[in-house]
């Protein structure tokens, strides 16, 4: 390997600090973090060396580093760090910068990552749906004196809104998928360039499958100590997202193939799935929030990057439940709740490859890469 010339990037250091890694500079390289980390490989373990790169602002060594994604933010490192350098938080900040680095539209990354742009983050969907949702005729769309949210934008031919909304969500989904794919591709090639001439294991499909198994089993999370409880919260959240996605597609199938529109009876299997997912979602978010607060002393309070994501996720849950409750109570304020619900869902969808949600794509990518290069088995 050619001798490397190091010229520290002070701005990158400052970026990490601004992104929630303010304790970064306290690290004195003892490697307690690496030892207490149960998810790191033994060879070239993390996060000690990442702390070093971060302190020196060695952006190249970090943004395409699979290890920052192999980290599951157990925060055992943070809990045991003798200097209060909080490696878990620093890596979280680095992941945020990595997301920005590989993002297709960096502006999107900035909007969701920069606390100063929080107004813009919310202003976009609020404005978007303010324009395209027929909120002004809320009463008009009561059918048989029953509130119908999916008819919020009724499927009447003369109404353009539903189509536009579907278009919005459709395009957003396409944008997200494209963003994610671009990010994944950039990350992958970045990691490959970083890794140099590391031998690949060959069977990419097999690596993907085994990574997926690990993810669905949440076996990595089980290795965490301080944040052990989080394993269950995260597991519930993941499965609730899966459940909600399936029920969403299911609903599309109902409405388009069978012309069967909602509100669906609670006995419908699709509805059952979505309600079960909803409960799992609520339980998950409660566990995660509880764990955050309970372990804040040891694991740190997290950064804006975490909290904006948690806010969006919680927002979906809260507005969803509120909307449901208000609908069942037949209170028209439910429309407003539903409106907000749509705003939050859009935020999640649109920013998925830019917010903390992106870890779904990038951690998976990194795990596959690690397997593919025999870094992990």
């Amino acid at each position, binding site marked *: 390997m050619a001798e490397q010339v190091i010229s520290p990037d002070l701005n990158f250091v400052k970026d990490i600090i601004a992104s929630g890694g303010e304790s970064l500079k306290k690290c004195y390289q003892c*490697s307690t973090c690496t030892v207490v980390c149960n998810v790191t490989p033994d060879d070239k373990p993390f996060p000690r060396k990442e702390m070093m790169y971060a302190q020196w602002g060695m952006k190249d060594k970090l943004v395409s580093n699979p290890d920052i994604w192999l980290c599951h933010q157990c925060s055992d490192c943070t809990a045991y760090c003798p200097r209060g350098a909080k490696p878990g938080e620093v890596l979280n900040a680095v992941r945020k910068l990595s997301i920005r680095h590989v993002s297709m539209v960096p502006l999107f990354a900035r909007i969701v990552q920069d606390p100063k742009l929080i107004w813009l983050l919310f202003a976009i969907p609020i404005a978007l749906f303010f324009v395209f949702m027929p909120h002004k005729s809320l009463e008009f769309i009561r059918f048989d004196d029953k509130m119908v949210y999916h008819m919020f934008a009724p499927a009447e031919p003369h109404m353009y809104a539903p189509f536009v909304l579907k278009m919005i969500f459709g395009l957003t989904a396409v944008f997200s998928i494209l963003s994610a794919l671009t990010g994944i591709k950039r990350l992958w090639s970045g990691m490959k360039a970083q890794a140099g001439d590391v031998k690949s294991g060959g069977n990419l499909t097999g690596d993907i499958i085994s990574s997926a198994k690990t993810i669905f089993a949440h076996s990595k999370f089980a290795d965490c100590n301080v944040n052990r409880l989080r394993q269950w919260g995260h597991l519930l959240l993941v499965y609730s997202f899966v459940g909600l996605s399936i029920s969403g597609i299911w609903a599309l199938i109902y409405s388009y193939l069978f012309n069967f529109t909602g509100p669906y009876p609670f006995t419908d299997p699709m509805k059952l799935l979505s309600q079960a997912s909803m409960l799992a979602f609520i339980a998950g978010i409660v566990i995660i929030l509880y764990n955050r607060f309970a372990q804040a002393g040891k694991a740190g309070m997290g950064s804006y990057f975490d909290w904006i994501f948690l806010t969006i996720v919680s927002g979906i849950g809260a507005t969803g439940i509120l909307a449901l409750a208000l609908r069942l109570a037949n209170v028209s304020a439910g429309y407003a709740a539903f409106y907000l619900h749509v705003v939050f869902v859009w935020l999640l969808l649109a920013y998925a490859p830019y917010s903390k949600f992106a870890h779904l794509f990038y951690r998976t990518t990194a795990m596959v890469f690690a397997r593919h290069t025999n870094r992990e088995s």
Partner: protein
Amino acid sequence: MPDVNRILVIGGGFSGLTTAVDAAETGAEVIVIEKNSYLGGRVAQLNKYFPKLCPPICGLEINFKRIKTNANITFHTMAEVESVSGGPGNYTVTVKLNPRYVNDNCTACDACAQACTAERPNEFNFGMNTTKAAYLPFNQAFPQKYVIDSSYCKGDCAKACKDACKYNAVDLDMKPGTITLNVGSIVVATGWNPYDADKLDILGFGKVKNVITNMMMERLASPTGPTAGKILRPSDGKPAQNIAFVQCAGSRDESHLPFCSYICCLASLKQTTYIREQNLESKATIFYIDIRTPGKYEKFYWKVKDDPNVSFIKGKVADIVQEQGSDDVIVTAEDMMTNKKVRMKFDMVVLATGMEPAGASKKIAGVKYNENGFALPDSGIYPAGCTKNPMDVARSAQDSTGAVLKALSKANSSGQGR
């Protein structure tokens, strides 16, 4: 009107003794208050000093001799300062005297110990063995006087001790007392305690059988220790041949001791020589963050580093467990120089636990401390040695000599002078 040349020295460890001797030899009247039953403090428990590998009792003997020959020094053992009031030139100090149950008639003839039927854990050896409840703290203890531990030796045992003494030295009716002293200035030399290794949860102390502290290692290596100087591991008494030293066990750690304890690197280097001296085959591995051998101590580091059986791994140990099915100990660290997480097996592990200033656990009313329990100078009150900053014996000696001049100047400045 207090005697302005009167200095109170709180603590009879190396710092306190140095202060006392130097002050008395400069003409001051000195009173030493020591909580233990003997003078010498922590260094009395050490086997050897780094870097010379000479016995601590050697320097103590000189200082004891100077105390014996100097009428300006009085000392109280088993005594604790309860409070300090007043100001420079005129302090009032209350001292609690705990009963020794043996008076000055004691000739150290050992008759009471022979008659004594009770045993007590030997705290001098960190509980690794026991002594009779009538005992001499250690072979070369000064003052050479026995002590009776009344919490273990009661009733018939106490009577047996009393009856065995031909010199009426055993006095079971001794009661705790309080004396009040009037002094011109005060030197606080209360020293340090080994940091409580039970608090280091991931380092296994108390859970893994063969994990000991560096101070315990001193006792194990000492001829007066529980194993008569043979380094045997606690679980099965086997000679410990392959030993890991875990540096910064508690030190440089915000959750424990946020400062560096100064001595632990040198102590571990020194302790490798104990093992290496006992057995040609023995091995030592030191896990460290930074090796801190300031000044001339660097050469001692080199000397140890030259031994092929002593290895150094840069990386702090953060996991110590007992091997399944054996008494061996598995230590995990990252070897930063090879960038690998390593799990290594040892016969025994020594935690280089740091020094916690005495002020962290017990503060003297009237003395000021910082957030970690280090005593602070205050006009007329001067901390010396490890009471104010972690340091080695050499620096403690030097620092204590310095404290004398400050105390003398202060004792004089507000009085009538010499």
